[in-house]
């Protein structure tokens, strides 16, 4: 410390500084635009902001108003139905496809991209395709009638009791191939020697699945769950394109609720509080997951 810095010293000093300098713009941006903004929105959720942000604090008023709104309770009920079915069905289909594809299937190279390509599409495109495919007047129902099955009826998309399930269908269509890819990678990572040994010992297929294969797929199950659940909470585009939240409010989700309260109904305080609830839902899933994953690496 006391000695005058030589040129070499300066250079090493600089060398240790450069990495941090390189990282700092990204960090600054993340801290401002992610964490700073989160704090700002949380603050707004405690104010009486309407069309413009106001800094007049009102305590938990927005939250208590929020949970008295039937519009919001419909949204979270819908999210519950949607997320549960979307995660469950995507996982089942993904696991089924991966398991079957892993049975030395001819044409696997052709089937895999067919299962996966919807993932490359925008939810707006997916919504456009399914909206019409499910439209009773022109899509599937109409076609069945033309083919002579007069009594066939499939009007879920127009029926407020069932419309939310059409969102599930389209969302599963879009993401289940991706879940398949995750499980397939998991299956291909299992040591074949263990399976051979179990087979020698006379284990049945079912036993091998329950005792060896499924337990080894735990990480894949976990990743699929985490990714699907955060997609479910964030779902916005698909609803807008497929049903626009309707019929009535039958397919409103928290994401569409937040948008309409903040930007069209000018209830920014309530919109902000709904965004905070969405963030907390995702954080409850992501934070423990990320914590565990990043700790393991040490």
């Amino acid at each position: 410390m006391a000695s005058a810095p030589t040129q070499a010293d300066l250079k090493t000093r600089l060398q240790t500084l450069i990495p941090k300098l390189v990282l700092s713009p990204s960090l600054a941006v993340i801290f401002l635009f992610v964490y700073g903004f989160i704090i700002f929105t949380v603050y707004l959720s405690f104010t009486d902001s309407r069309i413009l942000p106001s800094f007049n604090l009102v305590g938990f008023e927005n939250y208590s108003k929020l949970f008295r709104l039937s519009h919001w309770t419909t949204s979270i009920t819908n999210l519950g139905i949607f997320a549960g079915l979307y995660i469950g069905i995507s996982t089942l289909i993904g696991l089924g496809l991966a398991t079957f594809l892993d049975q030395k299937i001819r044409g696997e190279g052709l089937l895999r991209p067919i299962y996966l390509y919807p993932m490359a599409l925008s939810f707006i495109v997916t919504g456009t395709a399914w909206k019409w495919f499910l439209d009773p007047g022109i899509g599937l129902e109409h076609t069945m009638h033309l083919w002579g099955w007069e009594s066939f009826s499939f009007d879920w998309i127009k029926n407020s009791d069932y419309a939310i399930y059409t969102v599930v269908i389209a969302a599963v269509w879009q993401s289940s191939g991706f879940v398949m890819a995750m499980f397939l990678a998991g299956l291909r990572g299992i040591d074949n020697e263990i399976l051979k040994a179990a087979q020698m010992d006379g284990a049945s297929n079912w036993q091998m699945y329950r005792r060896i294969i499924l337990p080894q797929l735990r990480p894949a199950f976990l990743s699929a769950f985490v990714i699907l659940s955060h997609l479910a909470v964030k779902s916005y585009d698909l609803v807008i394109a497929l049903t626009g939240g309707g019929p009535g409010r039958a397919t409103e989700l928290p994401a569409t609720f937040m948008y309409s309260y903040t930007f069209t109904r000018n209830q920014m305080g309530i919109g902000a509080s709904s965004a905070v609830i969405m963030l907390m839902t995702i954080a409850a899933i992501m934070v423990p997951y990320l914590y565990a994953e990043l700790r393991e690496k040490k």
Partner: protein
Amino acid sequence: MSVATQDTALRTGRISRAFIYLFLLLMALFYLLPFAIMVINSLKPLSEITGGNMMSLPREWTLDAWRAAWSTAQIGVEPTGLKPYFWNSIKMVVPAVAISTVLGALNGYVLTKWRFRGDTILFGLMLFSCFIPFQIVLIPMARVLGLTGLAGTTTGLILVHVVYGIGFSTLYFRNYYAVFPTELVRAAMMDGAGFFGIFWRILMPSSGPITVVCIIWQFTNIWNDFLFGASFADFDSQPITVALNNLVNSSTGVKEYNVHFAGAIYAALPTLLVYIVAGRYFVRGLMSGSVKG
């Protein structure tokens, strides 16, 4: 990624194999049908769609709907077709992907080869930013873009996509560089190579695969974005996803389904092409989307 010859094939009888094939084929049909029908019907005149069967092939093949969707369809108040919005998307996606990928590569390099106290926490904070519901940043972002004069501009959208894309690009490069031999980096340091020298001459040459993965991922995400485009853009900057939604959900006039379908295919084409050309990388990208590399 393990080799493709490793499978968990079980002893299966002929009947169960037939069942497996049947299931796989039916599922393939499920994935292909909506999009395939959309393509077929985009090639029909409107009268054949409203009056006919969606499953039948066009009696009269026509590209009229494709032409209309591209250059004459009414979107919002202007009969511009999707063309200007397609270019808006390109102008937004190219710089946003480039910038976020470069930043991600540099961040990944620092976080793995120049580690310091607390770097894991900082990485964790960056990573969490990938998963936040964007509703939580919409209000302040609208304010900031408004105050800086970037609201309604492509530059504003590029900024937004770079900010919320850094987390993923950093994740990809960090996971990739984590398994890159640190000895090579050390040796180069001994030889007097500096921070950028090492990055340029030692890590860059072998970063091809992960760069492709990162570019595909960012391209798909940013091209397909709807929320930011709908919130922060106006005519001069609206991306094609927003324009497509306006086209399909406009309540005025006759619903020209064939034009809607052609429009949807335009919006899907770039990402589908990327997927077809580099699909294998795409899958790998999805896989490394889970936190572990």
